[in-house]
């Protein structure tokens, strides 16, 4: 495109779409893929700890858990008991282990110690997450079964039926993929988020300009013409974009919103005098002060009775977690929190809560929480949607599938850049070759890296120190190897070999799982452990899909032969490279 000449709106937008999508496209693909997997971060972490696969699920040893906590954490100001649920079958204990601080009136937020200003990286999320990975915490691997993933919090995983303490291997788990999704890896804290934020901005530009460029959203809605070269790629790109367009828009915009504090710090500077904690509290709302302890000892009531009572009141709605404030004190309170949310508008605090007096077991009134303001509601909806916190299985799977669609959208877009320009060019320019190499390494290579990450999880000895770090190293070693491989091989062979490699690595995960101590796929299906079966089935499907793609690439023969004459014509008409606007207007042959 020439900038010194008048041009149409569509042509400008087409140029913008092409280049905003390309420049950070590979990074965006990685962000999308790891983000999509992050919807199942707990499930992935659970899969990566085969020691936990065979926990018994018949029965709930809550009294045993209470005994353990009373022994281990009698002086702790707060306990959190995470109940086994659809997303994690173990019973999790966590307690705050730091010395009791002089208690100010608002020291403890309702969500426990979360108002610490670590806005995005919260390890304990609404009772759902059970993080076991901390890259900077050397003590985590040495501390045996009591791991502390955040300074001040101690954790213990129990078999839900027997109450036995379980020792699982240290693993980077799904948390590595989750954190890579928004802050990459190994960079100074702020830098990764800045880079992701800039990439997200490019994504938003690409989406909006893409909608403008797309000439016939309605007329071509269902159109997918197979076996027509770049026309088919364009159709596939259009379909994967348009069908989940609301998802792409919201996930991108809310991603920016999540990083908004960093990208546009002036709001915090001016309205809150730079106090980002006050800002976060105001945005999230709903920090209920906990009554200070009296200092008098009194035995805690039986938690099992409270659980049974709540189950009855809530009519079968699953309960996610139990929080005990000031256990052992006369003013102890117990809060039972529902596992799923009813609405997105209230944010994380929107889960149903039932509060009890910790000594008498009487129900207490919840302190009145002001309903969220409109600004808070908008924030909550966006953030909750982006993180998929709320979700019972069906909405979560829908988010996951939409994420897969988004990944396909980026991948087809990247490939199309190359294909639309590949016409009869004998010798590739440096830029074109670079895009081809990055396409192979950025798309197939990333999937190889993820597959290798899961393999490393099972093949690195379970008791190796810092094995979580090694899993991450294997991820990056595999990715680097795929970059070098893509540089050395021709485009088509590189694609085939890397797709086969990624497909084989991922499709073989269920077998690896069965061989290295995990619960095998037939076993997990038979016992109805859908959490594990889901991982294995997904691995089979994705791996199979990649092998099929490799097969299709292998069968592909270009329609035109590259000749000297053709490439001469091409250099003459250098300026009129095919672009979206032109492609869109072409009538199908």
């Amino acid at each position, binding site marked *: 495109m020439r900038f010194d000449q008048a041009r149409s709106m569509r042509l400008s937008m087409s140029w913008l779409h092409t280049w905003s999508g390309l420049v950070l496209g590979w990074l965006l693909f990685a962000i999308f893929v790891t983000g999509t997997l992050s919807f199942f971060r707990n499930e992935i972490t659970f899969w990566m700890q085969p020691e936990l696969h065979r926990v018994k699920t018949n029965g709930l040893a809550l009294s045993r858990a209470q005994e353990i906590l009373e022994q281990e954490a009698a002086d702790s100001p707060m306990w959190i008991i995470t109940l086994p649920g659809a997303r994690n079958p173990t019973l999790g204990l966590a307690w705050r282990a730091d010395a009791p601080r002089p208690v100010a009136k608002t020291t403890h937020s309702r969500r426990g110690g979360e108002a610490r200003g670590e806005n995005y990286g919260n390890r304990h999320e609404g009772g759902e997450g059970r993080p076991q990975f901390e890259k900077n915490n050397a003590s985590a691997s040495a501390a045996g079964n009591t791991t502390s993933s955040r300074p001040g919090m101690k954790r213990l995983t129990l078999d839900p039926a027997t109450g036995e303490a379980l020792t699982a291997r240290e693993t980077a788990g799904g948390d590595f993929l989750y954190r890579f999704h928004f802050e990459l890896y190994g960079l100074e804290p702020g830098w990764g988020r800045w880079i992701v934020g800039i990439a997200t901005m490019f994504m938003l530009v690409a989406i909006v300009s893409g909608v403008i460029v797309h000439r016939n959203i309605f007329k071509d809605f*269902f159109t997918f*013409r197979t076996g027509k070269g770049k026309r088919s790629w364009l159709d596939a790109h259009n379909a994967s974009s348009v*069908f989940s367009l609301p998802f792409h828009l919201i996930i991108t915009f809310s991603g920016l919103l999540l990083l908004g504090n960093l990208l546009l710090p002036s709001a915090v500077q001016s309205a809150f005098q730079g106090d980002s904690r006050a800002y976060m509290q105001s945005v999230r709302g709903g920090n209920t002060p906990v009554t200070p302890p009296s200092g008098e000892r009194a035995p805690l009531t039986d938690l099992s009775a409270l659980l049974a009572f709540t189950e009855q009141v809530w009519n079968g709605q699953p309960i996610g977690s139990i929080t005990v404030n000031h256990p052992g004190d006369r003013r102890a309170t117990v809060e039972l929190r529902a596992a799923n949310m009813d*609405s*997105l*508008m209230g944010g994380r605090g929107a889960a149903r809560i039932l509060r009890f007096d910790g000594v008498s077991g009487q129900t207490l009134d919840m302190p009145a929480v002001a309903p969220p303001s409109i600004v808070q509601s908008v924030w909550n909806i966006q953030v909750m949607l982006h993180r998929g916190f709320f979700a019972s299985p069906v909405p979560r799977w*829908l988010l996951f*599938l939409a994420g897969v*669609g988004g990944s396909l959208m980026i991948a087809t877009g990247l490939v199309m850049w190359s294909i639309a320009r590949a016409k009869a060019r004998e010798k590739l320019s440096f830029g074109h070759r670079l895009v081809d190499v990055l396409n192979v390494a950025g798309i197939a290579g990333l999937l190889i890296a993820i597959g290798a990450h899961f393999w490393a999880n099972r093949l690195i000895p379970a008791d190796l120190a810092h094995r979580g770090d090694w899993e991450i190293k294997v991820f990056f070693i595999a990715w680097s190897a795929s970059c070098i491989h893509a540089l050395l091989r021709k485009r088509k062979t590189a694609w085939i070999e890397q797709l086969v490699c990624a497909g084989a690595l991922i499709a073989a995960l269920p077998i690896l799982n069965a061989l290295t101590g995990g619960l095998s796929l037939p076993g997990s299906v038979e016992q109805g452990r859908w959490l594990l079966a889901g991982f294995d089935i997904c691995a089979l499907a994705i791996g199979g899909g990649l092998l099929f793609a490799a097969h299709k690439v292998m069968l592909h023969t270009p329609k035109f032969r590259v000749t000297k004459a053709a490439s001469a014509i091409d250099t003459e008409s250098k300026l009129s490279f095919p672009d979206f606007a032109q492609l869109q207007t072409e009538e199908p042959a």
Partner: protein
Amino acid sequence: MSLIADFLILALTLIGFAALSASMNRHAKQISNRSSHIASPGIRRLRLMVGWHLLALALYPAIKTYGISIGIAVWIGFLAISATAIALLLSYRPKMLRPVFAVTVTSSFIAGLALTVFARSP
């Protein structure tokens, strides 16, 4: 209960998109039994109206089951799946669309009926 509602949302969006695609010239040709025959403009306009209305109607069980905010998100998710399914059918098995359509209509009718009965009984 919730699964029946999920199925109903999926079925309604499938029928809706099938009707929408059948209202378009290009796809009406693909679906038609006789290759030269295309449904009349009147019929196609009817299909268009039915399609849009069914897509909107699918929002009702979604909101009823999941509440307004999550319901809309779920509805959008099912729209994406159904549109993908119809587009793939049209590309690879256009003749399958009619039987799929018939099965979905029948089963969604049953699902809707089941939901109403469940909703009535306490």
